[in-house]
């Protein structure tokens, strides 16, 4: 048997990282997107600064507002961490959305099936099973990449839709809630919902879970031997192989972790907010996680502010739509622009003044 060397893409963020500098890389796309957004607003006769001010106010001022922002950012933190772990191993996983859907359904299923179990049992169980399903889902493209050199970008992208339509089938067919016309599962048992912090907002303990997981992920990458292997494989897989690291196995582990966290993200959203699985419930959390991960690059903790930025936009954007008649789609414009700029290398040529590069 001949086994060709497993090719690992360079961590897509690494090259940008070197040029922008750590802070520049995370901040520059935001700033540029805000400028583009301001241009769009101004051209269409809106008050850009005023709009941003309203968004800021709605997103951060006041306990309930802040809680809502953090609520919106919770799934993005989780999908951001999920994507980042895979990216760090040099695997371009754009399939977190799929893990999220399957994890979400699994969590809902536990919640509406084992209604007799107490909360302390059913909640952890739902998360564990959701993580497991998400990980298994990610294993498929991971194994195909590691052992058959099948490009992971296309497989993960395609498998997203398989997951979305499959869960859609489940809640339109076998698990359609009795008595509803909409495509949704039965509601989960009350004790299976993630406890909330307050009456005025759906803000719940999932956020804390997400924060803990981010720190845990950061710790894992920095301090554990597995994290070390993941980093080395992502930085230079041939070097890692020569040093004795099993490259194929390492990238499979990274994908399993990525899928697991994606599954958690689905569980958190279903058990923390929706209370049941709803067909097509995600507005693209998995894809937004890609942006978040790109912005964080090699510093996992940056996932948190990046996710909060998008959470704030979503939260504030709603109010802007309500009061100043500015469509919430402005948020998509901003996010799309962030993505376009996130991996651009030459945009800041004039900033690259440091000599001595290769």
């Amino acid at each position, binding site marked *: 048997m001949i086994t060709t060397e497993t090719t690992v893409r360079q961590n897509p963020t690494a090259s940008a990282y070197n040029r922008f500098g750590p802070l520049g890389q995370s901040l520059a796309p935001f700033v540029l997107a805000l400028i583009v957004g301001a241009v769009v607003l101004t051209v269409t006769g809106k008050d850009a600064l005023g709009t941003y001010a309203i968004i800021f106010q709605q997103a951060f001022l006041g306990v309930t507002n802040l809680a809502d922002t953090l609520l919106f950012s919770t799934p993005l933190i989780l999908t951001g961490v999920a994507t980042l772990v895979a990216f760090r191993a040099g695997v371009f996983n754009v399939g977190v959305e799929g893990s999220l859907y399957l994890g979400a359904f699994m969590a809902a299923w536990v919640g509406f099936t084992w209604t007799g179990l107490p909360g302390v049992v059913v909640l952890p169980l739902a998360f564990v099973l959701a993580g497991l399903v998400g990980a298994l889902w990610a294993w498929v493209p991971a194994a195909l990449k590691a052992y*058959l050199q099948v490009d992971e970008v296309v497989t993960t992208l395609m498998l997203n839709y398989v997951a979305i339509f*499959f869960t859609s089938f489940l809640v339109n067919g076998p698990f359609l809630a009795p008595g509803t016309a909409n495509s949704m599962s039965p509601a989960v048992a009350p004790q299976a919902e993630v406890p909330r912090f307050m009456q005025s907002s759906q803000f719940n303990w999932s956020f804390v879970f997400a924060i803990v997981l981010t720190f845990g992920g950061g710790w894992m990458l920095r301090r554990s031997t597995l994290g070390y292997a993941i980093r080395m494989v992502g930085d230079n897989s041939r070097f890692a192989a020569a040093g004795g690291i099993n490259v194929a196995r390492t990238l499979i582990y990274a994908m399993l972790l990525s899928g697991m966290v994606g599954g958690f993200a689905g569980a958190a959203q279903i058990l923390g907010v929706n209370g049941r699985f709803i067909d097509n419930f995600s507005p693209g959390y998995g894809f937004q996680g890609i942006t978040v991960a790109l912005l964080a690059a090699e510093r996992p903790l940056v996932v948190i502010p990046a996710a909060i930025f998008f959470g704030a936009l979503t939260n504030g954007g709603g109010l802007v739509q309500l009061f100043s008649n500015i469509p919430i789609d402005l948020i998509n414009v901003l996010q799309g622009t962030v993505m376009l700029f996130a991996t651009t290398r030459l945009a800041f040529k004039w900033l690259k003044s440091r000599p001595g590069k290769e």
Partner: protein
Amino acid sequence: MFEPAIILTLLSKTLEMGAPILLAAMAGAICRQAGIVNIGLEGMMLAGAFGGVLFSYLAHSAPVGILGAIACALALGALFALFVITLRANEIVSGLGLNLLAVGLAGYILPVLFNVQGAFSPLGLEGLPHWHIPLIESIPVIGTLLSGYDPVVYFSWLSVPLTWFFLYRTVAGTHLRAAGEAEEAARAAGINARGLKWLAILLGVALCALAGAQLSLSQVTLFNKQMTAGRGFIALAAFYFGEARPVPTAIASLIFGFFEALQFRLQAERGISPQLIQMLPYLAVVIALVAVAVRKRVRLNTKARVAQAAAGQEA
């Protein structure tokens, strides 16, 4: 549901609903041949759908609508090319960003300009005509299959031989393939690789524009920002399935178009889940990619055994 009349309608619907997929898949195939994975097909189609409705409404003319569709999509495509080719941004991330940007811009502009939420279907919006071909129209089965579509559907059929001719028979197409497959070799032969990649994206975008316009000016006459509904990704699936070769890609597109027609049909019926049918194209691509990889592996193993035998002979 297997009565001949129903099957005939289904096939006719396949050709109609498959047209935008086919056009976008040709776009994707051209880009792929130029070495670019275009994830932005979805957004480019949406830009076409939007531009088509906007300009058809403003000018009360469907042909102007088509031109408007192309203009809007070209603007977006130029942005994509600028980032991916000139600024060397990651093509996957940029493609996904482009899709979001397209949704965002369409969703932003409609309420601001026309004060509409959701679907934009103004009075005076001129849809595409449906061409009834004399003589052929009156032939029983063939008439139903070949007549009564809008011009874009007919063009979508034409786009397959045109794409093939362009890629394999013109100088520009040959250079484009060379630039996509072996950029260094192309450069060594004096070919402007970057320019051709720009060309591939812009050509693709024009095809996507037609695909979008067909959706918003013929299948329905309205625009909403979700109307492409993943067709760009189905097109991606189609050209991956067809390995970016025009004819296999077209066949895959029509098969996927058939699934779509079938799924609409099944919404009325019970029994087979339309969702599972919608899932098939995506699953098919994964399976196809695995098959290609396995075949490659087998070939390599054979080559290795031959080489091994040769080395053994010498030693």
